[in-house]
């Protein structure tokens, strides 16, 4: 694969405690990673994941806090229940399960998100481009997505 695989990164705003990691995610992400920051993983509606998948993301990464470290107490647990099932469901209709990955970060971790993204990208390279469920029409430059 010549191009790098496109990754949609959904990220809880509380899970990167170190300022350097936070700065990297905010300002220095590679071009193939599309970041969506959310107030909590619990805010990630399965529809967001579906939009990313239909829009042609080769992989979706969801990064949040470990259980009992959620800023909103149970947001990550409910999110995990839903999104894990949504992943299984997408797999059921033909989107490979490996293309959605969950990363649960400890507040003590430093440099984890970079490592995880690199490992994920490596796996996506082996899988190749996503073909199934990619049906959303491409939007031309400057045009609004209806």
């Amino acid at each position: 694969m010549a191009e790098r695989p496109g990754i949609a990164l959904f990220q809880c705003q509380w899970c990167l405690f170190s300022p350097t990691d936070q700065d990297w995610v905010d300002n220095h992400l590679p071009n193939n990673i599309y970041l969506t920051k959310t107030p909590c993983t619990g805010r990630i509606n399965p529809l967001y994941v579906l939009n990313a998948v239909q829009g042609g993301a080769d992989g979706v990464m969801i990064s949040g806090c470990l259980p009992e470290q959620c800023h909103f107490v149970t947001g990550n647990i409910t999110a995990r229940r839903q999104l894990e099932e949504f992943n299984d469901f997408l797999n059921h209709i033909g989107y490979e399960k490996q293309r959605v990955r969950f990363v649960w970060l400890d507040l003590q971790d430093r440099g984890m998100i970079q490592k995880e993204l690199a490992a994920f990208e490596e796996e996506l390279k082996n899988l190749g481009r996503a073909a199934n469920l990619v049906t959303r029409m491409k939007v031309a430059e400057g045009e609004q997505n209806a």
Partner: protein
Amino acid sequence: MPDIEAIKSEAKRLLSEGMVEVMLAFKAGETPLHPQPAFFRTPDDVDELVYSSLNQNNLATYLTRLPKESKVSMVVRGCENRSVNALVVEKQKSRDNLYLIGVPCEGILDWRKIVAKAGEAVKSVNESEQEVMVESRSGYYLVERKELLHDSCMRCSHPNPVSADILIGEPLAESDSNLAREAVEEFEALSVKERYAWFRKEAERCIRCYACREACPMCYCTECFVDHIEPRWTESGATPAGMQAWHIVRAFHQTGRCTSCGACERACPMDIKMTYLTEKLNHDMKEKYNFETGLDAQTKPPFATVTLDDKNRFMV
């Protein structure tokens, strides 16, 4: 078959004593294959009530359309009873305002299968426990009941109402609960490519009439996500992306709420298969959380609760 006179006399008693304001059941429709849902409000109306295995709709759909405080009685089969329970759990109706006349269900006959068997317009259908007599213009056909059952009724494991106030007829034997699991596993054994090809083929026939949504008792959102234009949460046009998004999100919204009644599939004018989606979700809910929808009127669906056990499920 349950005694129709017993159902009628119970319904008349409820209406004349004023215990309920309205009775939900079926009356004869315009064609012999389609009895239609009806609201009976006086004891005299009840004479029109019919009960047969051709009753395709899930009557629980109408509960959320009646005023919330109204006292309602229903003739419920196994799946309808579970739908009612699920609605009670979601606080759409108080159980105190309901009086359920339970009927053990021998499975719904799929009218499409009957028409396919007869090959022409059907004049009448008479059923017994094992066989169904179909009368068409050219003669009579005697068909085994099993051949005409709707797909989701063939997989049904709870034919008896679980919390009816009165049960009319003898309870039937609970059947094998593995049948639904087998159907899911059979589909999952296909490769990713084949599964997607199947899904795409089914989804692209959709004409977006939303009959599945109207037929489903659990689809009661006042504003559906596809009707929401601003902001548009997801693709909702009549494009391949919009079709697939509709089928994915409709099914996924039923996670832990679907009772596998198959009303969506029976309502579909394009004969699109949908239960292979919801059966998968039901199967997962049972495997992961040991939850089956509507078996009682207290347990919340898995997505509405969290337990201490959850933290062990994280990949640490």
